[in-house]
């Protein structure tokens, strides 16, 4: 059986093809304006690249902010459940997930792959990838390099504002005072990490925690989180695709359910 999972996220869209034997292929691309057309293009490209015909895919499940607009998906699932299933597939021993995406950050508590509690921050950009993207711009550094830059800092600057807009003005005044770029970068990372650490503590996470989402690719961020939490994090080789992977796993079950309930 082959199924597909689409994670139409705020910043990027991810598609995963899943076979019984494991992941058959995946792609990650910027979400663009139209969730559906981007997802559709990725899906077609991925099928071609994986040498799988559309008819071979028994069902498609969508997750992410744009999941409602993915017309070719037969079912949908929330990001929380999707990440839980994806992470459990990759690392069955995990007890928690920290997901920092483009538009929100989430803490998920797991018990045997099932979600038992979760916490989301999505009311503003604080504690999200957007914060890093925005403030990296004010440092004139590509966001991908922000983490490495931060790692070279020996004296991180204090950034007190959680608000993205105010943090940018702090960055500008630090620049004006001649504070080195790497110290400001480290300060930005520390500020967002502090927020996520307190969310994780509130949910009682302690060890066996996976760090996923686009921001998990940021080495400096991972480092700051591990120091704040006091235990190492597990980062999958492709931390952006756990949601789409979980959706593809959900599609395995929903194919049968759909035919029996008839809706």
């Amino acid at each position, binding site marked *: 059986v082959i199924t597909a999972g689409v994670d139409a996220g705020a910043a990027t869209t991810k598609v995963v093809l899943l076979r019984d034997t494991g992941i058959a292929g995946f792609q990650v691309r910027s979400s663009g304006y139209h969730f559906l057309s981007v997802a559709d293009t990725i899906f077609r490209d991925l099928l071609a690249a994986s040498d799988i015909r559309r008819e071979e895919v028994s069902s498609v499940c969508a997750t992410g902010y744009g999941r409602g607009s993915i017309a070719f998906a037969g079912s949908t699932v929330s990001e929380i459940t999707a990440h839980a299933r994806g992470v459990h597939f990759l690392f069955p021993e995990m007890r928690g997930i920290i997901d920092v995406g483009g538009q929100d950050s989430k803490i998920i508590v797991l018990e045997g792959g099932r979600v*038992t*509690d979760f916490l989301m921050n999505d009311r503003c950009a604080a504690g999200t990838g957007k914060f890093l993207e925005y403030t990296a711009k004010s440092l004139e550094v590509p966001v991908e390099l922000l983490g490495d830059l931060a790692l070279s800092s020996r004296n991180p600057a204090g950034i007190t504002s959680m608000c993205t807009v105010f943090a940018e003005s702090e960055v500008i005044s630090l620049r004006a005072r001649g504070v080195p770029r790497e110290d400001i970068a480290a300060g930005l990372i520390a500020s967002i990490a502090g927020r996520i650490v307190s969310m994780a503590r509130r949910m009682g996470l302690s060890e066996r925690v996976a760090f996923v989402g686009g921001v998990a690719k940021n080495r400096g961020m991972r480092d700051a989180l591990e120091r704040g939490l006091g235990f190492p994090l597990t980062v999958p080789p492709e931390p952006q695709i756990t949601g789409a992977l979980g959706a593809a796993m959900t599609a395995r079950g929903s194919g049968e359910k759909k035919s029996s309930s008839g809706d």
Partner: protein
Amino acid sequence: MPPTLRSLDFFRDSYEIRVAQLKEERAAGRRIVGTFCLYVPDEIILAAGADRVMLCGGSADTIPVAEQSLPRNICPLVKSSFGAVIDACCGGTLACPHVGLVDAVVAEATCDGKKKMYEILPSSIPTCVFDLPQKPESPEARAYFTSELRRFGRFMEDLTGRDLTDDALRREIRSANETRRVLHRLFDFRMQDPPPIRGSDVLRVMQKQFFLSPDQFREGITRLCEELEQVTPAPRKGPRILISGCPMASGNAKIAEILEGRGAAIVAEESCTGTRSFWDPVDEGGDPWKALAERYLGITCACMTPNEGRIARIVDLAGKYRVDGVVYYTLQFCHAYNIERLRVQQALKGEKIPLLAIESDYGDSDREQIGIRVDAFLEMIS
């Protein structure tokens, strides 16, 4: 999906009927009192020969007017209510017309937002504020509250020019208890699985409890109960949910709509627009003033401390209504309910009942974000 209930039409269409009635009463010389809170005993107002109407705002429309005078980061219920009052006083068009029909406001010292709002109500509206001891367990607190209720009674006598007799008060207590019994009957239907009525429908009915006259309201609920005896609900799909937290004033059904839109079956509300308004009766024997003080001080608003009664009530309701999860709803900046969440959460955790906390205002901008959390919560407890 629960069936369409024809007896709900009355509640939906009752606004004009009630406003016309209030206008008629007023023209005939009856005084109308505006209220904002469950702690104001209806019985005292009615026994003095006046009528009453609840003024709590649940609409976002009147908030911009209020924000000309009030800070933005305070409770939306206070802003919405205040906006409606000042707009009605300046002849604005946004406010509900019934706000302009009140001769006086009777207010209680509950939360900071409301207390400070009462201080700045237009001087054209006579306002009686009575005190509310917020550590209500002691006999001294009850004695003091009794004296405050008597003072409120004298205010009512002055307003109506009529004597407020103990007999009249006992009559109103019996009448209000009858309404409470009828509401218990309505809520008992919701213990069934599947529930025969939608939570959002019950909410819209409860929002009329202190707007309609007691007779109109009781008759409407009785008709609804009779209809519910006849219906056979279709099988339930989503999990059974108890909503617990802040009031949802008329105009605000956002959380109920989101929950039902995502497949939940709301089976009870522990709130001012739910069980808190009717659960406990007033003792019909003995001194009516003491009985009122006893019952009304027992209301488990989060302004009280330590408020153990509320925690116990939530756990009790979760069991009685066989809920799969609790949605803890708070209005933004409502510190009392927001902080009390932690103790509710701990108590429910002990009972292995999952809780989803949602803090929101009257705007629509967070509907999708709340929906995402609700989806995840419903998946988690299904």
